[in-house]
């Protein structure tokens, strides 16, 4: 155990502080997201990549900074940006899920073509997994792709596809081997959202905004080489992606930032002239959450260290999505309670404007429920923790179904 900053990290810290001093004024506002990055954000992101504060460990030949994985460096960077309340870079499905997947199983060509533009924010991706009839039972996906004259011809429908209405590309899970078993019949394709025959229809969510979509495929042509890892390997690739998605969703630095916002909310909101932080019932809820966030942060440090050492963290990693979304929801719940009646006015301005604080908290509060469902629901996470993490026997199969 050594959390002390040794000399090279102190130097890195000084360098980041210097960077923030010189360029911090160009940072977009922290928070928000779930919309296409604007020019200011893109410029900022490029600057971060150049300096190695984003895409740090991605090899140079793929457009990254090419540093060796180093947990401490990552922690120092995250810490400095959080401390200065400066935007620490884009997180989206392309950067957090597809890029690590391609680095793990993509071809040389795919890495060269997609990794760089994705980490710079120039290519936005969406994830085409769920279908109306196949959500939790993802391996049962029925959208099909047939190989004809060097092209995959895709037909079918995806649903709840986040960001599809502004994405450039999709990573798609589809059935290419109808004769094979459920899990062995899937492939993973990369395709342009501008492909003829592809239509994304925005689907309004409970927040009142259109954050996800229905996507229809009618004879959509995708070049044969746009497959990742090979025919029938889609289930494997999809799971590589999901592993990264679940870690992204349960991310501890988000919890820490939220806790800080929550503390200042309780320090400023008041009832009858008393600050909420001075009322024991509110303060106690805050303290409990602070304890949990501290545990979560420490757990995250442990996982990062294990990842850097190439250790498979097993059940310690599998709990992240379930535990993280529960904690996130309880944090936003306290925020909504602290806002109380004064926080009830709700007008979401959509994608092009900043919402007020109360609306933002309420959107987070609702979106947190969405996060419990998306990326494999809470129940599915518990199945995974129980069956793969604790090695408990599986549910007996229902007779007569694949």
């Amino acid at each position, binding site marked *: 155990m050594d959390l002390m900053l040794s000399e090279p990290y102190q130097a890195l810290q000084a360098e980041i502080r210097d960077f923030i001093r010189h360029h911090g004024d160009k940072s977009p506002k922290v928070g928000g997201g779930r919309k296409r990055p604007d020019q200011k954000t893109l410029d900022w992101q490029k600057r971060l990549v150049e300096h190695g504060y984003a895409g740090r460990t991605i090899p140079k030949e793929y457009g990254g900074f090419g540093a060796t994985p180093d947990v401490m460096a990552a922690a120092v960077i995250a810490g400095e940006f959080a401390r200065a309340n400066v935007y620490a870079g884009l997180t989206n499905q392309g950067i957090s899920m597809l890029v690590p997947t391609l680095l793990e199983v993509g071809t040389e060509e795919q890495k060269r073509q997609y990794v760089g533009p994705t980490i710079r924010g120039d290519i936005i991706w969406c994830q085409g997994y769920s279908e109306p009839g196949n959500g939790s039972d993802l391996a049962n996906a029925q959208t099909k792709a047939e190989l004809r004259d060097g092209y995959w011809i895709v037909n079918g429908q995806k649903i709840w596809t986040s960001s599809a209405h502004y994405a450039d590309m999709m990573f798609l899970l589809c059935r290419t081997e109808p004769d094979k078993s459920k899990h062995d019949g899937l492939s993973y394709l990369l395709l342009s959202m501008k492909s003829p025959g592809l239509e994304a229809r925005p689907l309004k969510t409970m927040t009142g905004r259109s954050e996800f979509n229905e996507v229809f495929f009618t004879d959509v042509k995708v070049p044969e080489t746009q497959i990742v890892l090979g025919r029938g390997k889609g289930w494997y690739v999809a799971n590589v992606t999901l592993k990264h998605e679940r870690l992204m969703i349960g991310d501890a630095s988000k919890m820490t930032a939220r806790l800080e916002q929550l503390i200042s909310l309780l320090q400023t909101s008041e009832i009858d002239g008393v600050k909420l932080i*001075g009322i*024991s019932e509110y303060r106690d809820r805050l303290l409990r959450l602070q*304890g949990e966030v501290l*545990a979560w942060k*420490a757990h995250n440090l442990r996982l990062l260290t294990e990842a850097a050492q190439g250790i498979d963290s097993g*059940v310690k990693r599998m*709990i992240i999505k379930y*535990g993280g979304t529960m904690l996130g929801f309880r944090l936003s719940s306290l925020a909504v309670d602290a806002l109380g009646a004064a926080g009830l006015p709700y007008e979401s301005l959509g994608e092009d404007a900043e919402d007020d604080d109360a609306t933002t908290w309420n959107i987070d509060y609702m979106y947190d429920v969405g996060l419990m469902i998306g990326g494999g629901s809470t129940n599915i996470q518990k199945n995974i*923790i129980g069956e793969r993490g604790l090695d*408990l026997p599986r549910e007996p199969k229902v007779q007569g179904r694949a």
Partner: protein
Amino acid sequence: MDFGLTLEQRQFDDSLRAFLTDHLPMERLRALAEPGIGYDETLWRNLTELGLHGLLVPERFGGAGLGVLDAALAAEALGHAAAPVPFVGSIVMATLGFMNSATEAQQDEYLPQIAAGECRFAVALPSFAGQTGSASVQWAGSRLSGRVTGVADAGAATHFLVYLADGHAAVVAADAPGVSTRMHRSIDRTRPVVDVTFDGALAERLDAANAPLVAARRVLDTGRIMLAADTLGAAQRMLDAAVAFAKERVQFGRVIGSFQGLKYTLAECVTALEPCRAMVWYAAYAQDALPDEARLTACHAKAHLGDVGRDVARLTTEVHGGMGFTDLLGLHYWFKRISFNRQMLGGPERCREEAADVQGWKLHA
């Protein structure tokens, strides 16, 4: 940076756990729990071979000179075994008390004895420990008077390290004139609680700390982390037992672990408990290396483990069905261990109260 254990730490942990598995089979634990004094001469002696007693004692006084994290690992292993060993008071808190508040000469007198397992201190803390019961001790003319209830690790104490309300500490032999003790077997038969009364007992002050209250709080906080670590070990033991049971017990023609409801119960336990391990490590490390975070993380670790421990203890007992409620299975030793740890040195409510104080979050402000 490296957030994890060193090879030496893992080896120490392995050997301590192996030792405890060998020396504390269920029948032995039962036998030792009956008198409830929380101490066994043979076990105590044998543990000196592993160097447990001198863990925190500096090398020049015959110890290993290790840190609070090492001690937390030992506490976790002892909790896992429900071992009747007065580790927290006699080994950890007493050693730190001397290191923080005693003169070199006093350290030279007592620390080698602690390291050799020759004397067993119990630490009596005044009201700032945040326990219910009474705690009031006065110092006048080298003599102690007053009473402290609910002292831990004192079932076989040879000495008391008594803290005064201002943070000063004093040493007094348990058999000195004017010292009387009353032991209660506690709900946790592996550790008793003791009430100690001082009636003008002659004592020796430890006056070397520049800021006595700060030094005293550090001893308290480290004790809290040890209790949190003990709960972690005990809760992990209960969870492991429940998972194993769930893979064996058959009902409705299926092993019960294949029922989704039961699977979810266990998934919830592991989701709550696993981050606690990192939390305890972090808090323990902070005591030695991150002074700004030391108090806050200690209070939170004690509070959080108290809550998670209670949930895991209940749920894993339920998983065992009627068997879980029997004396026969012995699972209750760990349930009670966790219950004991929760109340000692300040319960979750009190520890969170202190966490609020540390951050300047005042009530009705």
